[in-house]
């Protein structure tokens, strides 16, 4: 047994999930205690004992539920457009060597540009509207979807394709029975990461200019110094993002061994 193993076992005397939960609990405790004992101004950082009930209160308000619904709808529509479109574009480009040579570098160029600087242009093009939010969400997400889809296509093993061909698989059978399952692990990762970009894009568009949506209320309550409401909304948004992310991650781990 080497020293590394010894050190490892030492550190593992507390199981990682327990340690993680303890860490989160400690952070929440500090958040609770610091403003109540006067270490922090409670108006600047309302403690969990204020934010918790505020979340409940917000869900009771039709206005807030409307904002939540707007954001979720925009996010969903943008996601349902950008992921399939990006994926299909990636396949069309990835399948053809010539198209790859032309388009792949361009996709990388555009991907590297921060998308937020285009927000004013989207307002010119679409006005301040549902369409503008969705369009910007799609624009924010499309390129990461394409890049990750390229990686997904490349992750399909060549020998898996040769086997299918040697057993006389048709083109359609190869796509459905080999390509699709072969790239599923990377594709799930693509979906997970794309959602982060997508959600960020929608919230940013709402914060920049809008009349509704969670981004809009965050912006307003921040300006209006309503930090209890602001913090409650932040917690709600964080929870939505984490739940989506973890759901996909659970799926990913179920097909972990597909990568071998």
């Amino acid at each position: 047994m080497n020293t590394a193993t010894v050190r490892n076992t030492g550190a593992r005397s507390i199981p990682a999930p327990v340690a993680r939960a303890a860490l989160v609990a400690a952070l929440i405790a500090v958040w609770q205690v610091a403003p109540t004992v006067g270490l922090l101004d409670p108006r600047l950082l309302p403690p969990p004992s204020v934010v918790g009930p505020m979340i409940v209160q917000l869900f009771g308000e039709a206005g807030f539920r409307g904002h939540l619904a707007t954001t979720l709808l925009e996010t969903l529509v943008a996601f349902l457009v950008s992921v399939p479109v990006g994926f299909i574009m990636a396949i069309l480009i990835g399948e053809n060597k010539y198209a790859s040579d032309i388009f792949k570098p361009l996709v990388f160029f555009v991907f590297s540009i921060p998308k937020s600087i285009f927000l004013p242009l989207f307002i010119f093009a679409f006005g301040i509207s549902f369409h503008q939010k969705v369009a910007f969400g799609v624009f924010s997400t499309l390129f990461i979807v394409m890049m990750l889809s390229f990686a997904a296509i490349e992750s399909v093993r060549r020998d898996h394709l040769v086997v299918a061909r040697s057993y006389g698989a048709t083109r359609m059978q190869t796509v459905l029975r080999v390509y699709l399952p072969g790239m599923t692990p990377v594709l799930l990762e693509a979906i997970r990461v794309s959602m982060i970009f997508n959600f960020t894009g929608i919230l940013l568009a709402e914060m920049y200019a809008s009349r509704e949506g969670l981004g809009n209320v965050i912006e307003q309550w921040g300006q209006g110094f309503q930090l209890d409401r602001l913090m409650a909304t932040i917690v709600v948004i964080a929870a939505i993002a984490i739940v989506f992310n973890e759901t996909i991650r659970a799926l990913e781990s179920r097909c972990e061994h597909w990568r071998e």
Partner: protein
Amino acid sequence: MGLKAVVSSPSPAFSTDESGAVEVTNVGHVYETASGTTEALTDISFRVETGRFISIVGPSGCGKSSLLMMIAGLVQPTRGTITAGGRPLVQPDPTRIGVVFQDASLYPWLTARSNVEFPLSLRHVDHKIRRERAEEALDLVGLAGFADKHPHELSGGMKQRVALARGLVQDPPILLMDEPFAALDEQTRLTMGDEVLRIWERTRKTIIFVTHGLSEAIHLSDEVLVLTSRPGKLVDRVSVDLPRPRSFEVMGGRRFEELRERIWQRIRS
């Protein structure tokens, strides 16, 4: 002929059964790539009679895999013709030829059983029949109890057995194997060799077996084809006249050493 076909007497020297015959005539292959052309093989001709076990040996890069891929119909020869079962191959025909690859190339998302069923499911074979045939094939390779395991739960040797079962499941008269046991350790390789012999003796398929191991080639085959490289050429056909079953004594004997020496000399020339 079912997988369970009983042991038959060794095939006569001139078989009239064309179903498992492979005929390669003046075959050459040139790969065209961005960096230029590679002449992988030139003017290869040989015939394998039904039920024979032949090995192909030769230095790395001499075109053994290319030759096998052409016989399988996965690569079209640039020159010459190939027939399998008396008919030319324009595309892979899994009912005539089964292929087993170097790294088992199983689908990790499918169980052993589903991997074996895969060729049948592509042809929409009825579920019940599919299952029966897969079970039979897994049984034949000694993996009856492992049907529901995924590849990551199997050892390297077991994976190759599954790949072998997949190659056998449609009961093709011809089986091509491209260094199927190269990635395995010595002991497992020996066991797998015996396994292939046992299956060959039971089913009397034509087997074309590519390997780097000269001893393995002599141990298994009726005949060893020797290729040399750049471009790959057929330089010798060595008939292995050792009696079967080939015991340890036979394998340590003088005749074995002579054959090995002859093949080795031909490869080096």
